[in-house]
């Protein structure tokens, strides 16, 4: 018996038929395989390493099972807590300034009548460059002897500063670099939020005699609350992962003044090859990030589930 083309096609279609229930799972499976391979497997391996003695520069390599001893060591390591403190100083400082400046820039851009597109394109440039590459340029701009920043401050009669060499200034200088690079991103998110607010709301406010500040306080901020939470969280998670800028600008110095947590983990893991301690710190770091993100997103999640219901 010979099958017609139509019969073959129908037969194949029915053989490979995927039910509508399974279809989403089929589509998501490759992504989950990638996530599993590149995220879950390394995470599981990091947990495994954190429970063992593992010094890759010794013949033993990955050694005996230690239980929670590495966690005990890390939580009692003064350099770990010092690095955590510096990470929080950087993250809170940088994100707060970026949110403030980002909002100001967004309001300015939103009020522009001409050249808005060009301005939007120009401010995005700092985001487009690698922090490592541009960090090296900033290192020379900050240099106390040759740098442009000292040339600028001295023209205003302000004493020249040792931007990256003074332990009291080095972290502020890294924050300034981060603010330069990431404020445009915050501004663009806020600008998108502002542009989605119906103009009638502002017009109604104006009819009621609302000043600029009152419009901002009682219309813009509430309407942007989700964007504010979202961008704060995004920037905070990115800020606590700070590494490139520190590597390029100060290498953690002077002394340990800018040795943030990721840089300390890098030193332990890739300079000392104590992958057990580096993994332990990474697990604790991940846990803390998830908790903070969860708390920050809680309100949005509750709102979303209420809307869904």
């Amino acid at each position, binding site marked *: 018996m010979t099958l017609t083309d139509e019969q073959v096609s129908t037969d194949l279609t029915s053989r490979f038929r995927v039910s509508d229930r399974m279809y989403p799972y089929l589509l998501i499976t490759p992504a989950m395989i990638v996530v599993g391979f590149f995220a879950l497997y390394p995470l599981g391996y990091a947990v495994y390493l954190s429970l063992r003695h593992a010094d890759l520069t010794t013949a033993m390599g990955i050694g005996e099972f230690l239980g929670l001893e590495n966690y005990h060591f890390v939580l009692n390591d003064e350099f770990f807590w010092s690095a955590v403190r510096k990470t929080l100083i950087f993250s809170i400082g940088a994100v707060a300034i970026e949110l403030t400046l980002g909002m100001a820039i967004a309001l300015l851009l939103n009020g522009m009548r001409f050249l808005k597109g060009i301005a939007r394109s120009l401010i995005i440039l700092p985001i487009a460059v690698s922090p490592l590459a541009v960090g090296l340029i900033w290192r020379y701009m900050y240099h106390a002897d040759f740098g442009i920043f000292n040339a600028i401050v001295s023209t205003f009669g302000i004493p020249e500063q*040792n931007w990256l*060499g003074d332990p009291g200034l080095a972290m502020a200088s890294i924050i300034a670099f981060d603010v330069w690079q990431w404020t445009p991103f915050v501004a663009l998110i806020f600008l998108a939020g502002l542009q989605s607010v119906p103009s009638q709301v502002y017009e109604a406010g104006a009819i009621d005699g609302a000043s600029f500040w009152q419009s901002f306080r009682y219309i813009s901020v509430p309407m942007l609350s989700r964007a504010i939470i979202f961008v704060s969280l995004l920037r905070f998670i990115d800020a606590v992962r700070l590494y490139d800028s520190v590597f390029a600008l*100060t290498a953690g110095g002077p002394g340990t*003044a800018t040795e943030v947590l990721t840089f300390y983990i890098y*030193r332990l893991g890739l*300079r000392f090859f104590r992958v057990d301690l580096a993994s332990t710190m990474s697990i604790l770091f991940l846990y803390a990030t998830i908790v903070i993100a969860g708390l920050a997103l809680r309100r949005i999640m509750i709102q979303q589930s209420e809307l869904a219901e």
Partner: protein
Amino acid sequence: MLKKWTRIIAVLSVAALLAAACDSGDDTTATTADNGETSAATEAPAEGGVTVNWAVLAGFYTDWAEEVAAEWEAETGNNLNVVGIDFPVLYENQVLESVSDTGAYDILTYDVGWKAEFSESGHLLALDDLLAAAGDAASGLNDVHPALLETTSKWRGQTYGLPYYTFTMGMFYRCDLWEDPTEMADFEAAYGYPLAVPRTYDQMADMAEFFRRAPGDTLKGEAVAEDFYGIGLMAGRFPHVQDEINSIAWTNGAKVINDDGTPGVTDPEFVAAVDLYVNELLPFAPPGAGTSAFNEVVGQMQSGLISMTAGFYLDQYPNMIQTEQLIEGARICAAPSPGAHTWVGAFGLGISPDSENPEAALSFLSFLFSESAQRRFAEGGGSSTLTGIISDDALVSANPLTTGHYPTLLEVLDHQVASNYIANYLFVPQGGKIYDEMTTWYSAAAAGEETPQGAMEKMAEAIERACGGPCEVANDALGAGYSPTPAPFPYDELGY
């Protein structure tokens, strides 16, 4: 119908993506990765030939290495893949490949401070049998200066690598200032002894103080418009500050690691060395010293900002000498750094135990250490490790802009051999880690984040942590002739 085709396209797209992800990517082309690694284009080796991968310090040396590689390829029919790696990631990149047994590199490049760790941890192959089998083919290796051979090659009596580029320290100074009659008279009147190459670090501190000039002061009889500083220092958190400070400490008779393996950095002589650096030299350095590495100090000299360096890498001579073109009337001279012992070091080349072609790798090393290859290296501005090259007066006369430091280099290396003092920490298996810790804590002292005493106490803790207690000092191979303290430099004999 549309739905069916959408599904088919979706499944095919996913399959294509997976296939692309699984592609091994055998084709090798010129690339620069984010990890600071640059790989030269690799072609298939000639029939019967093999490919040797060389992890090499990126810089002008890479260009020279590629030139030499091309000649070796033509001669042997093998292929050499030069993988240039930036210094800040050179250590971790190679160790990571080694502990993962990837066999990515046949030839490794290591700093003298990493030698013990690389050898002890099995990242380097003991070369003695290979060298013996190579016979005359490797005879050029015998000309490596003995001072560098012991510090850079030997571990527990075996040879693990060969030094190909030395960054041994001396010092640079503006000899036009040192020879100016007004400055000479003023200095002698102020300090009670003649202005000459400093023989001690106290003298260096005097000279650093003397040459510090504010705008309006005179230098060589002329008013200076901007601040001029007595000394340039590499006090930033980069792997150079330790070489400056250790030179002072060794001269004081102090040690990073004592002979019994305990940290020596909290000994009074060691803390005094750090204190001298922080309180007697650093105040006369440009404000940028706190963030400076060696290249910034070169920049300070070329900008006419400083009168001298402290202990400084002599291999930077080709850059330092450019000051003479940039600053009118300036002359640059090299001299041994003050005191007794300084940083005597080199980059070594060894063969990975994971190499599938160790004989071919050794063949290339032998070629690299040949007289002709090293001569071209020297002419191009490299600091050779071969005695025959460093001591070649004709070469120096013919290439004053690239080899003018060779006489000083030879004096420092010869003194190392005569003194027979080698710092203990070069014989500690955790040398690479200790080297990294030094950067942190010396920088902390220099920046004022810690007092010299406080920084050295933390450094001592770090050393004990790295070694898991007292360190093992494996310098037995130095034999009975080993001197536990460095001998003073023979300035008079050498006419300084």
